[in-house]
Each structure stands twice: as structure tokens, then as C-alpha cells.
């Protein structure tokens, strides 16, 4: 791993997180004829992504995970606003987030230090230009050197994701979904960035292809030592690829631990029901879904946002907001009932 990080020879900084998010609040605010409405999509989220790890973020639709990664990637457009908190990248110190950094700084780090793999790679690849032009546009300014040499480097990198050099001359629509996603992966990793944001990168793929692409993401990540923020709603994918996992519910984190521990010993009632509801081939026991529905973030429940659906809810849960507390080494949970159990 240290070998892979040779590009950034800061031994003392090795132990520091590459990304730390502190108490982030990102709201959608609208104002129609004097009526102000706010959707508290991300409300007080704190976590850190270490060097060389794949950090998973799981959550359902409208849990705020997309807003969270938009904020981290600096893709903030009205009505989305960062209301509070800070986002600190180790390679972009002092600004408190990409959205506050000057344009030149953002240009410097994009693709070189921070890159993206999205669900629909059609959105990264220009549909009317050949795949090659994406590499030239995004990666060439950072890699430089002769064009011939650059092309050789691209071809060598494409071989890592088992793509033939002929894809460079193809248009995105000529590639299959899996090939396109692998091309996007090659594009995201060719500059050996320190940090990769992967937003549902395999959700649109068929299962067989999905497993293959996940293996490639893991392989390249091991080789380059990049940190990955891996967002998906699919718990099977998390179990397969992430090192640590955070569970998000209604705009807040509810639990965070090593992925194996989350699956073996989930503590938060939401995580528990989420994991126990997953069907497995070979197991015939009936599985119950969770009652109720995720809350409306324009008018979230008071206190713990999970309390209306929670089997362990008490008086206190509807009044106070539980904070993320470390209940075992590296295992953080935001739940009063779990706190009571730990103290007892």
C-alpha cells in the first residue's frame, strides 16, 4: 500500500483520513411567493474515509445519499445549499469543501486526485464523440508528455479492465453496458487518483457482468491504493467490496462499522431489519419487511427520524436526536436503545 502511495510521500500524513466530513448539513431550499420550504436531505453527517479503503454508503431512495455525494463532489446548484459543516480533502486543505475552492484549484484536482464512476457512464462519455476524446479531455492535461506516449499509457490501462484498444475509436453507444462501465472505470483511474467517488457503478449491469466489474474496481483500487467512497443501495454489493460501511436513513447516518461486523452484528434497529429482510438462496424461513414508509424529508419526524417505524422506540426517541456514539472499537451507532444496552 505504501508503495502504491509513492506519488504522495507523506509518511506522517499516512494515518490521517483522506476525506473528513464534519457535521454536514445540505438542504434544498425553495421560496415560492414568500413561502419558504426546506428539505433537509443531509442533516448532520460526520464520517472519515481513510487512505486505501473502500468506504461504503448504503441507504434507500430519499435517504440523502445522492445529496451527500453531490456535496462532496462540489456539484452544488440551487436549490441545494450547504447550510453547515465542512468537507475536507487531504489534497485540498483549508477550503472546507470543493464548492468553496477556487476554480483553478478544482481544475487541478479533478480527475488527478478526485474522480468519479457513475451509474450511467453515458453521462461521463460524450455520446457524439469517440471514447478516445474523453481520455484526451480529462486525463491528458494531467498526464502530459507526448501524445503517442499518452496513447500507449491509455492502451495499457485499458488492458487492466480487459478492453481492446479498438474501444478508443468507438462511440459510447457502440459498446455494451458492461464495456462502457469498464471504459468509465479506466477513465476514472488512469491518473491514479487518491479518491474515487463511485455512485451505484454496477446497478445497471447484469449480475454476471456486475461481479466482473466489481472485481476490477477492487483490483485497480488495491493496485493504486486509492480511497473509494462506494455508494449503492444493494447490500450484496457492499458485502462483496467495501471495507467499512455506513448506513444512512432519512438524511443521517445511523450506523458505521467494518462491513463484516455490520453484517454479522448489526446494532441499529434499522440496520437489523434491513439485513434480516434480505432473502438468500437456500434459506426458506419467512422474512418480514419493515412496516411503515421512509419519512418525508420536508417534514421529518422529531427526534430520531426512525422512531415511527422502530420496534424499540421509547418516549425519548421522539424528542431528542441520538448522536453517533462509538459502542465498540470502530463501531458507531446513533440509537438510544443501543446506548442503554451498552451501558447496562
Amino acid at each position, binding site marked *: 500500500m505504501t508503495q502504491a502511495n509513492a506519488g504522495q510521500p507523506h509518511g506522517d500524513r499516512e494515518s490521517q483520513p483522506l476525506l473528513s466530513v464534519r457535521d454536514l448539513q445540505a438542504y434544498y431550499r425553495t421560496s415560492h411567493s414568500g413561502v419558504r420550504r426546506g428539505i433537509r436531505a443531509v442533516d448532520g453527517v460526520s464520517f472519515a474515509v481513510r487512505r486505501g479503503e*473502500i468506504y461504503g454508503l448504503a441507504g*434507500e*431512495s430519499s435517504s440523502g445519499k445522492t445529496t451527500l455525494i453531490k456535496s462532496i463532489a462540489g456539484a452544488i446548484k440551487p436549490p441545494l445549499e450547504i447550510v453547515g459543516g465542512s468537507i475536507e480533502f487531504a489534497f485540498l486543505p483549508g477550503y472546507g469543501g470543493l464548492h468553496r475552492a477556487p476554480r483553478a484549484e478544482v481544475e487541478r484536482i479533478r480527475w488527478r486526485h478526485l474522480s468519479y464512476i457513475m451509474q450511467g457512464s453515458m453521462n461521463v462519455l460524450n455520446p457524439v464523440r469517440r471514447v478516445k476524446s474523453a481520455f484526451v479531455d480529462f486525463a491528458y492535461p494531467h498526464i502530459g508528455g507526448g501524445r503517442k506516449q499518452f496513447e500507449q499509457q491509455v492502451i495499457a490501462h*485499458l*488492458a*487492466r*479492465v*480487459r*478492453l*481492446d484498444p*479498438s*474501444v478508443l*475509436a*468507438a462511440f459510447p453507444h*457502440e*459498446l455494451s453496458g458492461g*464495456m462502457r462501465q469498464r471504459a468509465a472505470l479506466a477513465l476514472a483511474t488512469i491518473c491514479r487518483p487518491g479518491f474515487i467517488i463511485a455512485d451505484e457503478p454496477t446497478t445497471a449491469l*447484469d*449480475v*454476471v457482468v*456486475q*461481479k466482473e466489474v*466489481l*472485481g*476490477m474496481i*477492487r*483490483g485497480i483500487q*488495491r493496485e493504486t491504493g486509492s480511497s473509494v467512497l462506494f455508494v449503492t*443501495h*444493494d*447490500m*450484496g454489493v457492499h*458485502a*462483496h*467490496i*467495501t*471495507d467499512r460501511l455506513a448506513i444512512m436513513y432519512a438524511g443521517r447516518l445511523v450506523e458505521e462499522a467494518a*462491513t*463484516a461486523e455490520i*453484517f*454479522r452484528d448489526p446494532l441499529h434497529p*434499522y440496520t437489523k*431489519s*434491513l*439485513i434480516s*429482510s*434480505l*432473502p*438468500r*438462496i*437456500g434459506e*426458506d424461513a*419467512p*422474512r*418480514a*419487511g*419493515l*412496516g411503515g*414508509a*421512509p419519512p418525508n424529508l420536508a417534514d421529518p419526524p422529531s427526534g430520531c427520524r426512525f422512531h415511527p417505524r422502530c420496534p424499540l422506540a421509547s418516549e425519548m426517541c421522539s424528542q431528542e436526536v441520538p448522536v453517533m456514539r462509538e459502542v465498540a472499537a470502530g463501531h458507531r451507532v446513533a440509537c438510544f436503545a443501543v446506548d442503554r444496552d451498552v451501558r447496562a
Partner: protein
Amino acid sequence: MSDLLLDVIEVGKTFARGGLLSRETVVAVNKVNFQLAAGRPEILAIIGESGSGKTTLARMILNMETPTSGRLLLDGSDLAAISDSASRLAFMHKVQPIFQNPFESFNPMKRVERYLLMTRRRFAGAAGESTAAADVDAALHKVGLSLKEVSDRYPHELSGGQLQRVAIARALLAAPKLIVADEPVSMIDASLRMSIVNLFKTLRDDLGISIIYVTHDLATAYYISDRIMIMQKGSVVESGDARTVLKAPRHPYTHQLREAVLLPEVTSAAPNITPSINGLISPGAPERTA
């Protein structure tokens, strides 16, 4: 009457692609045969990846697509004979669809109960108008909702899980014998998914409705289905008892699908992917563009 609810005989569908000069045909479904017995409700899962023809097959059963070869018999009568609105209504009485995205199945500008009332009027006629609300309420109760909960609501005001339940309630108003559900839970959040999946079991056991469950998800198929059909490139490659097929697959493709399912558990201390970096650097056969 026939003792078969649905008889699919050598059904095939080809699509033509290309223009005047370069015409090629794509075989979406290739000679598929299967039966559903009448009076013995079951859940049949049709499994396949994208492009396997599973949705085209489902659309043919729903009479939304006409087969280019073979015949589909429902209760002994050929779907090809449906020509006028009376026979179409009779068909819809027996077979109802559930689609993947409930937000696309409902008009966002209409309140959801309007759909339910319209559907009810369609199937019961104007005669029992006085019991309309009660009938709709009864259908909603079968899916764990009530008219009070959904009245005056627009689709966006309900969660995906609730709206999919409303879609199922709408289908139940026709008192169908068969429901064809195309990926009904893949858009539904994980915490709500199992309650919808369990609902299909209830429909089979309590209401005696047979269900054709079209999906790519082997785990939920294993959980709810009695029988399973695996499709690859338009053909059925393996079929049989769901437990037998998924526990001990015989066809290499079924085996491959089964192996690719990501288990929701971490088996060893390290994540259960072992990257073969060597394999990545020296590729066996790099993929070319078509």
C-alpha cells in the same frame, strides 16, 4: 373448460431491425413452452438478464405483443382470437399486469383513487355504483392499505412501496386468475421490498391467484416461487422446481447466474473478492467492439 389456465405452445417472437437495405431479424423469444394448471395457483418465476426475452414473453402473455409463431391459450381460448372490446375486457378480467416502476404506471396528475374507481367501474359496470367505494376499500385492504390512507393523494405523495401496493390493489379489482408482474420489486426500497414479495405469497395462498414473476433477482425468486424458468437469449435453458433448480443448477448458464449472486454476508475477515491483478494486467482475451 380446459384444465390449463395458461398454455404457451412453441411461442416465438422476432423483431426486424435496420432499414431497407440491411434488414436483420432479432429473435427475442424462441419456441417457449410452458403451462399453468387451472385451480392450482402457483408462482412461476421467469429469470433472465437484460436481452433474455423475459419481458417480451411477459408482454405476449399480457397480449400487449403478438407472437410471430406459436400459440398462447388462456383457459383454452387463443389470445389471437381477441379482436373486439368485449373479448379484450373478458381477457383483462382474467389476466392483470404489475409493472416495474409504479410512478410510471400512474398518471402523476391524477389522484390514485380515481384509477381504482375507474377500474372498478370498468369491470363491475355502473350497476353497483353505490358499493364502488366499499369495493375499492376491500381491494386496498387485501394489500394492507385502506381507502382512507390513499384518498386525495397524488402518486408522488406515496412511497414506491405504497404505490406498488395500490397498483396491485388495482389489479385485484378485476378479480384476475393470473397476475403477470414484470420486475415488480426492483424499484422498491429494500426495507419495503419484502412486504411486497410476501404480499404475492398471500395472493397465491388466500386469493388463489397464479403469478408470473419476471425478474433478474435469483434470491427473491428462490424465496417466493414454486417453479422457475431460466431464459438466455430468448430460449428457456432450464426449468423446474425453484428449490431444485437454484440449489443444484444443471445448465452451465444457471450455474453462472447462481455463482454471480452476491450474498449479503461477508464470509471471511477480508472482503470476499480476491482480485487477480495478474489476470488483469495480462488479459486473456480483451473484448473488442462489435
